[in-house]
């Protein structure tokens, strides 16, 4: 026993001395990028990554730091940064010219050319291709011409944003020539779309079932390709990848090489949230996006004095969404529910740093509505205060009665069930808050926690769902902020099925309810116009043309949609979500909000929409800005 103890002690000491020998540290003195390591956590597939963006694997930090678009937009601010495109000129003749950076090169050393831009769009039929009238044209080695469909030409702002949405620096024509050429061949063999055709027709060609099959086969071949080096153009090159760690080295041939002030990026692959907190606490990473519960956040900052935490708007609001399939949700009851909750308390339960909202479900997050709507229209959005007396009055008007402190309807006690995605901490907090409020108010509530998004969504959208209402994003923009994405989220993709909105069917077309077959599957919803004329509009006719509006038209359209949705009380927002970034302030000398950081490293100030800080802080979130801070030189290490 004694011998074993001695051996164990010797082994532990030896492991500690020999195993922890590798450490990186920053040197002092003049800035030499090679001396600086930026450490970040972003998960990738442990089973290995394919050496290109379209290989189907999650590639972790490579996506931020190696694969680039023509123009990068910053989520939540829509700020544009030109990367692979030196310039994009939009002409009056429905064409645009993309001029590619003269010095842009692939990581293999070959030039990035117009051919590569064309190759990207011609194998990835991304959203923007639906607005383009014909295949892209190569004007010269570094210039590409786009011809837009005249009948659905996006405005200049949207053109840039659509082009910014795609990682164009991911298809090197010389590497993927066979599949790109094959794709072009399939494309050109299809029927041309007639003028005015606004269904899916990339580059003006209508996809047939047969060509879809051919595309799929070709795309699968493309996915399966695995070039020797990772296909990318960005500021960092992939050096080495293991199951848990990744090393990226500065690309010395990068066209903005002088901007890049860090020599190495060390990536960690830690999916578990507690593991991430431990990495932050023990000074293993210099950056992490997202929030943590208040106590955890402060504990992390206390344990690691190098860190600060900045907050920025997340373009989405969290609240309640009603299942309209349930008869209980009459207009009066929906309105009553707007008054029941103390939204400030609900916000605190979900995200202490959020911004309390007093809006019903309107289809846009408050910060986005404020940024895009006319001020006078924004002021017309109905706001609701915490007023349970008013709620009780409305419920009584709806035929509800109260007996023994419990609300009854039709002689039976009201019992509701609330579904929520238990993997989302904010939503779990809100669900608990709602439960507490409603039980006190006299409405019995059963909480139904789903283990993950998939289970929750499946349960919520199914017919005769067990959920009477759910906690969810009442509006959310995953992509750029120009108003469309959030309306699609609310009406088509996620909240529409959860609310059980009605959609046009084949039967509606056969019976003449609609005269356009392409409206099948689109929401039936009609809403009152905002001008008070009493006229209504069909939401399914508004959405497809959002990108082509002038500023004035957009204002009118937004007023109709936001105020129209608000009038229905399909849900209620508790708070606009606020997210954040943990950053190593001792490593990065050029962080914004230095005065705030000096006062309190947990910076709670959320910059106003449109202010300089608003843009600067959003950039610090690498998920929002995708590494712009490196390629544009916003981050400089502290010497």
């Amino acid at each position, binding site marked *: *026993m004694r011998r*074993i103890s001695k051996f164990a002690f010797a082994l532990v000491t030896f*492991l*500690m001395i*020999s*195993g*922890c*020998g*590798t450490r990186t540290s920053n040197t002092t003195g003049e800035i030499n990028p090679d001396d600086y390591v930026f450490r970040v956590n972003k998960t990738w*597939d*442990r*089973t290995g990554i*394919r050496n290109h963006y379209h290989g*189907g*694997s*999650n590639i972790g930090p490579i*996506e931020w730091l190696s694969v680039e678009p023509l123009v990068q937009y910053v*989520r939540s601010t829509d700020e544009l940064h030109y990367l692979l495109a030196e310039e994009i000129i939009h002409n009056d003749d429905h064409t645009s010219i993309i001029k590619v950076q003269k010095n842009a090169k692939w990581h293999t050393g070959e030039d990035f050319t117009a051919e590569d831009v064309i190759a990207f769009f011609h194998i990835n039929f991304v*959203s923007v291709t639906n607005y383009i009238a014909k295949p892209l044209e190569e004007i010269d080695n570094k210039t590409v011409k786009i011809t837009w469909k005249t009948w659905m030409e996006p405005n200049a702002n949207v053109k840039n944003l659509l082009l910014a*949405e795609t*990682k164009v620096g991911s298809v090197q024509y010389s590497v993927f020539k066979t599949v790109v050429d094959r794709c072009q061949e399939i494309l050109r063999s299809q029927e041309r779309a007639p003028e005015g055709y606004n269904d899916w027709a990339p580059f003006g060609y209508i996809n047939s079932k047969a060509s879809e099959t051919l595309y*799929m086969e070709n*795309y699968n071949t493309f*996915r*399966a390709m695995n070039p020797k080096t990772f296909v990318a153009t960005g500021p960092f090159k992939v050096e080495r990848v*293991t*199951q*848990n*760690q*990744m090393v990226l080295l500065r690309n010395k041939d990068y066209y903005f090489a002088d901007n890049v002030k860090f020599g190495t990026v*060390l990536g960690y*692959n*830690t*999916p*578990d949230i*507690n*593991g991430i907190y*431990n*990495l932050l*606490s*023990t000074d*293993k990473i210099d950056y992490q996006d997202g929030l943590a519960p208040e106590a955890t956040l402060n504990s992390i900052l206390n344990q690691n004095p190098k860190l600060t935490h900045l907050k920025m708007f997340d373009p989405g609001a969290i609240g309640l969404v009603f299942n309209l399939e349930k008869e209980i949700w009459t207009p009066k009851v929906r309105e009553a529910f707007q008054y029941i909750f103390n939204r400030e308390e609900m916000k605190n339960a979900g995200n202490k740093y959020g911004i309390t909202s007093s809006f019903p479900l309107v289809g846009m997050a408050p910060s986005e509505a404020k940024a895009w709507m006319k001020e006078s229209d924004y002021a017309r959005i109905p706001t609701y205060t915490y007023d349970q007396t008013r709620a009780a009055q409305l419920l009584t008007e709806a035929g509800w009665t109260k007996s023994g402190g419990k609300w009854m309807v039709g002689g039976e006690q009201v019992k509701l069930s609330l579904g929520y995605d238990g993997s989302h901490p904010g939503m779990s907090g809100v669900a608990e808050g709602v439960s507490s409020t409603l039980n006190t108010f006299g409405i019995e509530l059963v909480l139904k926690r*789903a283990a*993950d*998004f*998939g*289970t929750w*969504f*499946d*349960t919520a959208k199914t017919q005769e769902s067990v959920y009477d209402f759910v906690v969810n994003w009442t509006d959310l923009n*995953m*992509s750029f902020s120009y108003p*469309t*994405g959030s309306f*699609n*989220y609310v009406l*088509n*993709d*996620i909240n529409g099925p959860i609310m059980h909105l009605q959609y046009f069917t084949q039967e509606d077309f056969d019976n003449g309810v609609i005269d356009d077959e392409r409206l099948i599957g689109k929401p039936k919803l009609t809403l009152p116009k905002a001008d008070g004329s009493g006229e209504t509009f069909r939401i399914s006719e508004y959405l497809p043309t959002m990108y082509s509006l002038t500023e004035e038209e957009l204002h009118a359209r937004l007023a109709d949609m936001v105020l129209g949705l608000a009038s229905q009380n399909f849900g209620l927002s508790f708070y606009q979500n606020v997210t954040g970034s943990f950053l190593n302030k001792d490593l990065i000398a050029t962080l914004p909000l230095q005065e705030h950081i000096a006062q309190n490293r947990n910076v709670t100030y959320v910059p106003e929409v449109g202010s300089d800080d608003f843009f600067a802080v959003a950039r610090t979130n690498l998920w929002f800005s*995708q590494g712009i801070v490196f390629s544009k030189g916003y981050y400089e290490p502290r010497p």
Partner: protein
Amino acid sequence: MENKKPNKVKQVLVAIGTFIRDFLFKTRFLWRRIGFALITLLLATIFGFFLIKMMLGDPVTMFAKRLSDERRIPMDEAYRLATMLLNYDPNATVWQQFGRYVSGLVKGDFGTSMYRNDVTVTVIIKNFLPWTLFISSLALLLSFLIGILMGGRMAYKRKGFFNAGANSFIVVSGAVPDYLWGMILIFIFGVTLRWFPIQGNYDILLELKGWPFITNVLYHAFLPIIAFSIVQIGGWALAMRGSALGVLGEDYIYAAKARGLGERTIVSRYLRKNSLLPLITSLAMSFAVLFGGSPLMETIFNYPGFGSEFSKAIGTRDYFLIQGLMVFMSFVMILANLIADSLYSIIDPRIRRDNT
């Protein structure tokens, strides 16, 4: 002379037949077990397939959500991309899927990920099982070693400070789940003292060869191994104590004492060795259990093991991988049971007789 040849052939054939008949008769207990094992495997395969089909969560929507989050693209765009990227036909009937699944198994194809056609069950077994087996087998051996030392001493000296301490340790270590031990160890030795790494299997900045690499791997494995071991020690100690108490009443122990042999000699040469025999089979069975990995522990230590990949497949509703991994684990468990059962039968003829 002419009749002799056919007679000889006949005799040989009869001899072979007799041998086969005798062999089959003698080993009939084994064939019966193999038959049962195959039926169990078949049932596990069918049960697993339909159980997975009952899981909520549409993989296309989930993948679209993931793509939308990762690539910051709208859900409709992500959904279109997800449909293109998935190796999955949502319109296929359950029976078509089952047919495809079984025909794959027959060909030795355990399954391919729905999300990536280069990720197969075989790839996962090859890449992740070695890491799982590495830490869990070391933990098993360590806990076994400490457990038998502790149990032997507890049996021999049933009073005193050591016994009380050991009993307390067994109660506490058994009552606290392994993942909680993992978190406690990380907090103390990883976060507070910073003596050991809090996650991973080795440092990427090292060369993948030589002594530095080995020590770095052991350094990273230290906390997971300790966490795994703590909960297992108690079980082995109690089993050993039970076995040793039986041995203590044997005549040869009294004889050894009468011969004036020292305590240490009696414990190490007579008591421990004889008490160990029944524990060896348990050790073999425990080894089979290791193949399943420990998803929670591997997640806490962010260790690239088989269990955490399995739980990831469940989280992403990668049906084809889940099915394949379940079949693989069923196969290992059933095989281990079969071997253990057969060994018992071979070692102890009474079991064979009882069963036949």
